[in-house]
């Protein structure tokens, strides 16, 4: 008995020390990635991360296979057919970035009924039998104001740059930002424009609203718009406010230039495309028999003053800062949800 306990303990240590260990008894299991879209840099990075991390996992014998499938068109009906094909192909788990939160529920239910573990991430599904690795966009917005409250204890006026109107993510992040402004009443949001998560749109929008604004001390953003905002503000004689960045390469590069030139300070926050690898490890843990709560939350990838250089060096030109998750990270996320 004690020997068994000791073995278990040492195995646990081995697991924690070596994220990619061949110890797991999931070595015969096959995991598939069902992806609905591959048409932008974020999704490309997501697929590359998947290939890299799962490739190592397969080589180390953690799982037997981890194949990625992307539908040719970003359509729910097509992805539903893809999932049903995966059931036929005999996968043990399906990791899913869904085209629609609800339209795949029928296919997901079929998979669950066939005994397949379904883990959805980023684009999650509402079917209760599936696991969800969701992004807490609200917290992402709130944390920006919290950061500013530490940098600027006196508060002041903020400019908010929103994303694409009518999209769920935009509503959530904005709600979080306004919640933050309520929590730290020294800040007042004096203007709000839609930057559509694109630098050029953000630049135009910010340039348009600037003349009507009082002094601003900070710009809260949603990612993909910080560089455009900086360009628009630099074209005026205003003092550069603290612009929260969104992990895009051009944003980080600008931040680095400003940091070197005049000690500019800010932070950057977004979701790493490598979240697909977190979903992979979570699926592996579930297959391994671990008890995992159905709803998990993805940690953000936050870049601060001191780790800016390393993150910038790791980010491709025109890309997004990324992080690949390990089995250890997945276990941490699973445990924090309990």
């Amino acid at each position, binding site marked *: 008995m004690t020997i068994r306990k000791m073995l278990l303990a040492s195995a646990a240590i081995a697991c924690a020390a070596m994220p990619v260990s061949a110890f797991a008894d999931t070595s015969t299991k096959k995991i598939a990635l069902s992806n609905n879209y591959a048409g932008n840099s974020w999704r490309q990075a997501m697929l590359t991360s998947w290939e890299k991390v799962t490739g190592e996992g397969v080589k180390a014998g953690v799982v037997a296979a981890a194949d990625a499938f992307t539908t040719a068109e970003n359509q729910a009906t097509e992805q539903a*057919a*893809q999932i049903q*094909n995966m*059931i036929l*192909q005999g996968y043990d788990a399906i990791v899913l970035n869904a085209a629609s*939160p609800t339209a795949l529920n*029928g296919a997901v239910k079929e998979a669950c009924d066939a005994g397949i573990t379904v883990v959805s991430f980023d684009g999650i599904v509402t079917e209760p039998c599936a696991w969800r690795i969701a992004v807490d966009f609200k917290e992402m917005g709130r944390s920006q104001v919290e950061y500013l409250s530490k940098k600027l204890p006196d508060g002041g006026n903020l400019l908010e740059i929103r994303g694409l109107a009518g999209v769920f993510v935009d509503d959530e992040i904005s709600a979080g930002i306004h919640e933050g402004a309520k929590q730290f009443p020294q800040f007042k949001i004096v203007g709000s424009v839609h930057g559509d998560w694109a630098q050029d749109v953000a630049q135009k929008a910010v340039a348009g609203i600037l003349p009507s604004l009082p002094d601003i001390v900070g710009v809260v953003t949603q990612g993909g718009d910080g560089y455009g905002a900086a360009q628009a503000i630099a074209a005026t004689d205003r003092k550069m406010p603290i612009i929260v960045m969104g992990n895009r390469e051009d944003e980080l590069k600008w931040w680095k230039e400003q940091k070197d030139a005049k000690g500019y300070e800010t932070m950057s926050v977004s979701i790493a495309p490598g979240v697909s690898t977190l979903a992979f490890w979570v699926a592996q843990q579930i297959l391994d028999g671990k008890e995992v709560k159905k709803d998990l939350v993805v940690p953000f990838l936050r870049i601060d003053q001191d780790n800016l250089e390393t993150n910038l060096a790791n980010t491709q030109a025109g890309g997004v800062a990324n992080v690949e998750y390990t089995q250890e990270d997945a276990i941490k996320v699973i445990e924090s949800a309990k």
Partner: protein
Amino acid sequence: MTFRLSSDAMRLAIPALSLTLLLAAVFWLQPRAMSYVGLNLLFNLAVPIALATIAQMIVMAVNDLDLSMGTFVSFIACVTATFLRDTPVTGVLILVGAIATYAGLGVVIHLRNLPSIVVTLGMSFVWGGLAVLLLPAPGGQSPDWVRWLMTVKPPLAPMAIVASIIIAAVAHLVVMRSSLGVLIRGIGGNPRSVERAGWSIVAARGAAYGLAGFFAVLAGIALVGLTTSADANIALRYTLLSIAGVILGGGEFIGGRVSPIGAVIGALTLTLAGSFLSFLRISADWQIGAQGAILIIVLAFRLMLNRLEKQEKGR
């Protein structure tokens, strides 16, 4: 040659042959599919496509084309997941209204001599807009009886196969055997002679569109039964899939030459082609192209047979 296939049978032979070939290939690649559950998984999403294809086929029988099929089915899906579940009476009224609108479109297209492509393209924005109004965010839930119907496990053959056979049989009876069906195909073939024979073309065209609307409504309901909930963009692909299904199944754009059984087979073939390519592990970038290639091969084959047929007739 003493024995000759009728041209109708010939028309059916090619789609049936391509479906058999594809099915054999899929079974070879994935033996697991050769079972009750496997067949259902392969084909259950083809049921709404088959219904939409029949709807498109009826519109094509009167020499028109319906470009709003995808958004219309999406709209019906949204109605099914909201009104039809919560307030069935209102839901049914909306569905009846939608069918009536379709019939009205047929009448307007005929009376004003409008190109159907333009009218239905315009309507596609109307249906799309209504769908977004109903369900701004994806959601809703399928009525229990619809869900039951689409997941029922009949003896002998899985639901998807039984449903396909029923759809094909009913559509065949309506379009090929009933007087209304003959009339509809007559309009596609030679409207003037139909008119001279004393029939009202306006009424027949309206009826054709109404019938198409009815099948499209069934497609939307069936789709929600499979997905359990709806999304305003759920069926956008159906516009092109339904046209491709009709053509693949031996129908033609003009002349009222259509084949309901062929259309159902065409829809099944298209669905199966997707699974076949995914079992082959063809990358997503090539899949659309490969799907197109399958279409072209089948069409080329048909053209070749048509030519042979003509040559023999000329002799």
